[in-house]
Structure formats: structure tokens, C-alpha cells
């Protein structure tokens, strides 16, 4: 069954068209990667899927309901959002940031309850950040901050996580650690993930980790191809869209098959 479904969705800022005829289905428990060059419309699509931007034509449905007819609080119980970079306005404690994930369960004039605090702590525990609970989150590194953002999303207790290039500002190790956390969550909780990314190998990483993965390759406001990672992330498609020569390699090792696509050189 599909949780999120877009049907010929288009979006434009004034006269400028940013998304054109996007059709997609995100199935329960799968990893759906949005991949494509800078400026192709990934972030805009993410905002539309979250109901923050309203499509100018076509529809986006969340569990069969038109997202335009849903209130922010209703959407927030289905979809949790992890931004690319989080701006830290005040040195809140880590736990206070994670507690914000409970807003959609709390009345406008109420405070978070004991159970909300417990949910927030459990969420921190699941990303391995519970020991940072009382630290000001301005003192965290980029990698730790992204894990706190994941914890906040988990505190929302939604069936779907929507992430916009969540590893864009992380170093080599933190990026891998972040992906590992996501894989563990998907396996443990059957959570569905939609993730925009700049790296084709993210999709292969999820597939190598035995998670049901699909990729939509975006280019210039549209979907160029959609399907399993090795159907979409082909040497030909890399050439056609990025004008690069690349090599898809598969390697057998003790825990299974490893697939990666190696960039080799650009064409003029």
C-alpha cells in the first residue's frame, strides 16, 4: 500500500515552474531516494510532500487524503521532517529540542507531559544520544545535531521520515554513522523513509543493507527514471544527466553483495 502518492504534481513560484508532472508512490516500509543534480527540484518536492508548499496542479495524497485539505497537526502525525541544516536560534538543551517533536500531540496552551518527556528520552536513546540530554545543543557537532534531529522526528512517532539531504554537512564517518542509524531504524520499526540526496551510493548503501529501496532520478523539474537502484543509477543515466563517465561495480563479500557506482571523469 502506498503511504504517499503524487499524481502529476506540478509547482511554480509565480510564473517560474519548479516541478513538472511528478508522479510517484511511496510504499510502506521502503526507502525512497530522490536523487538528482543541484537545482533539479528535490527540495521543492520535499516541501510539497510535507504540505508546506501547495502544488499548483496535480495532487499529493497522504494515505489517500489530499494533503492540501489536511491541517499541519494532522500531517505532523504522519510525516516527520529532518532538514538539511538546522539553524540553532538559542542554546536549548538537547532534550528540549527533542520534546518539540511532541507538539502535534499537545494543546496550544499546554505543556509537555511526563509521557512526552519519556517518549523524547526513548527517541534520544534510539539514536544513541541519551547521554547528551542536558547539554546545550549549540555545543554539538554537525553529526550529533543531525542525530538529535532524527530523535526529534522519532519523538513525533510518525510512520514516515522525510529527509532533505540530511548528510550534506557531515564528515565521512558521521555520514556513515547517520546512514547506519537510519538503516537500523528502518529494520527495527518498519518506518518508511523518503530521502533527498546528492549521492547515488546512498541508494546502493540501503540496498546493500537489505532494505527495500527505490530511487527517483530527477532532472530539470521532472522525474527522469524511477525504480530499483541498479535500474536507475546506470552508467548510461549518469552520463546522460551528469555528463560523467562512471563504473558500476559489484563486489561479493562475506555479508553479501556490495554495489557502488564510481565516478571516473567528467565530459566537457
Amino acid at each position, binding site marked *: 500500500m502506498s503511504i504517499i502518492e503524487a499524481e502529476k504534481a506540478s509547482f511554480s513560484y509565480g510564473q517560474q515552474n519548479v516541478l513538472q508532472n511528478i508522479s510517484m508512490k511511496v510504499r510502506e516500509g521502503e526507502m525512497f531516494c530522490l536523487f538528482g543534480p543541484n537545482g533539479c527540484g528535490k527540495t521543492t518536492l520535499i516541501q510539497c510532500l510535507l504540505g508546506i508548499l501547495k502544488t499548483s496542479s496535480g495532487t499529493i495524497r497522504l494515505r489517500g487524503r489530499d494533503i492540501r485539505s489536511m491541517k499541519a497537526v494532522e500531517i505532523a502525525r504522519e510525516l516527520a521532517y529532518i532538514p538539511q541544516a538546522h539553524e540553532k536560534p*538559542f542554546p536549548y538543551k538537547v532534550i528540549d529540542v527533542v520534546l518539540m517533536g511532541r507538539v502535534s500531540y499537545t494543546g*496550544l496552551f499546554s505543556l509537555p507531559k511526563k509521557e512526552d518527556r519519556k517518549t523524547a528520552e526513548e527517541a534520544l536513546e534510539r539514536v544513541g544520544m541519551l547521554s547528551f540530554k542536558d547539554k546545550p545543543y549549540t555545543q554539538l557537532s554537525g553529526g550529533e545535531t543531525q542525530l538529535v534531529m532524527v530523535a526529534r522526528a522519532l519523538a*513525533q512517532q510518525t510512520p514516515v521520515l522525510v529527509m532533505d539531504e540530511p548528510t550534506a554537512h557531515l564528515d565521512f564517518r558521521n555520514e556513515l554513522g547517520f546512514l547506519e542509524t537510519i538503516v537500523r531504524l528502518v529494520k527495527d520499526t518498519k518506518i518508511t523513509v523518503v530521502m533527498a540526496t546528492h549521492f547515488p551510493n546512498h541508494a546502493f548503501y540501503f540496498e546493500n543493507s537489505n532494505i527495500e529501496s527505490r530511487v527517483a532520478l530527477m532532472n530539470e523539474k521532472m522525474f527522469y527514471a524511477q525504480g530499483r537502484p541498479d535500474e536507475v543509477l546506470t552508467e548510461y543515466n549518469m552520463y546522460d544527466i551528469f555528463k560523467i563517465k562512471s563504473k558500476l561495480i559489484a563486489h561479493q563479500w562475506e555479508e553479501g553483495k556490495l554495489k557502488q557506482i564510481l565516478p571516473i571523469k567528467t565530459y566537457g
Partner: protein
Amino acid sequence: MAPFLLIFISLFIGRYPLSMGQVIGVLGIKTGLSATAPLPIHINVVWDIRLPRAILGALVGGSLAVSGAAFQGLFRNPLVSSGVLGVSAGAGFGASLAIILFGSDTFYVYAFAFCFGILAVVLSYVIGTNYTSTPTIMLVLGGVVVSSIFSSLVSLLKYIADPYEQLPSIVFWLMGSMASARFKDIAISAIPMGVGMAGLVAMRWRLNVLSMDDREAQALGVNIIFVKGLAILFATLATAGAVCVSGVIGWVGLVVPHMGRMLSGNDNTVLVPTCLSIGAGYLIIVDNVARTLTGSEIPLGILTSIMGAPFFVYLLKKTKGRGW
């Protein structure tokens, strides 16, 4: 609790010396607990001057501090104060206009100050609204524009005001004072201040979320336009209610929230009540100094910063600007 204690202590402070028994006597007769009539002058000093001033000080201080904290959260900027959307400048213009049109001791001064304070915020909001969203930077710029317009208009009014009667009244009003406090004034201005403060205290946890990026806050389940508008409404009611009876009192709406941040952290569920207490207590103390230090009144706006600055520097040094 501290503000209530300070209100009580304020009853003993002043240039007319009163003993503990005399103050209790006045309170006793007024609350119907005692029957022995104190001297009329004592009743006058305690019940008609010191008590209303202390209560008003608490209300005004609390309002300015709480709305300052709310605006800082809302605008994700620790440098904004309760006057960021132009409410002080607008109220200043309203009061000046009323002083010139109707004289300085009239009800019109409150009414005009309040209405123009609100009008200024509405203008800032309209200027800052882009399609259906209210981006922070646009709102702040809207506030800057509106404030500067009203400040210029105040200068214009000062320029054309009668220099012997009206001009001193305007200047004195703009420097802030509790001197006009009577119970009937408190009763009127306490409504917007009370509603504003109560509203902000009630929705204080939402202020945490509003300080996040708008898109994040919306994805967390907040109806941004509505909740942000509501917070602005409450903060504006509190500030306009305060400014219209007390004049422009700077510093409280900017620095008290920072004192609160240093003492209690940045979580608004704790910060807002803390600011309420500090702001209320602080203005009671400052007003006590204002009316006792010299034979005539010292304008509050002068004292708030002169007295607050050393304390603020002390806090900065002690906490080493922790967290910033």
C-alpha cells in the same frame, strides 16, 4: 513570589516615613480586618500612592519582560526587544498627539498611546506579510520602518508643541514614569497587560517551536500563521498596555529576558515565568528608587538602564556569557 514581597516592602519605602504599625493599620482598614482608623495622610501615602505604584510597576515590568522574551523567541534573535514591531514608537506618538490636542492629564493620553501602539504593530505586520507568510526579516524591517516613521512624527510634534506646557509633558512622558498611577488607571491598563501576559505564559511552550525555522515548525505540526499571529497579539497587548500608562521604558524588554536566560536557561517554559518575576521585581525596585532618591521624581527610563547595566555586566561576567 518575590514580586509580591517587593510590593509589600515598597509600602514602607518613601520620603514620608511610616512605621510597620502604621502601614499595617492602613492595610487593615482597607481590607476590613481592622477598625482603628489611621491618619488620612497615612491612608493617602500607602493606599493611594505607594501601593498602586508598586502594583503598576509589577504589571508593567512583567509585561515588558515577558513580551520581550516572546519577541526574541519569535524572531530568533536575542537583540530584539518588546518594542521591535514599533509599539513603543507608536505609543509615544499617540501620547504626544493627545498631549498637544487635549492636554497632558487626560484619559486621551492613555487611549491614544494604546491605540497608536497597536496601530504601529498592525502596520509592521502588514508591511512584513508576504503573500500568506510572515518571514522574520520582513517583519523586523517592517518594525524598523514603522518605528522610524513614528519617531520622526514625535520629533515633529515636539517641534510644533508649546515649549512651556506641552513640550515638557511630552519629554517627560517619553522618559517613562509611574507617577500617574491610580487604581482606576491600573484597572484599565491591567486588562490588556493581564490578557497579554496570561496568553504568553499559557502558550510558552509553543514559543520554543516558533523559534525554529518556519518550515520545521510547520512540519512539527504548528499552524505558523495562526500561532505566530497569536503570540504577536498577546505580546503587543502586554506592551501597549504597559507603555500607555508608564510611557516609554527602555531596557526592561531587552535585557530582563537576557537576565532570565542566564539564570534559568532558554527553555521558554521556564524562561517566561522567570522573566515575569524578574521584570516585575526589577521595575518595583527601580520605581522605589525613582521616587525616593531625590525630592522630585527621576524618570524611570533613565534609571532602568543606569541601575540595570551594572547588574547586567555582573551577570555577563559571572556566567561568562554561557551558552552564547
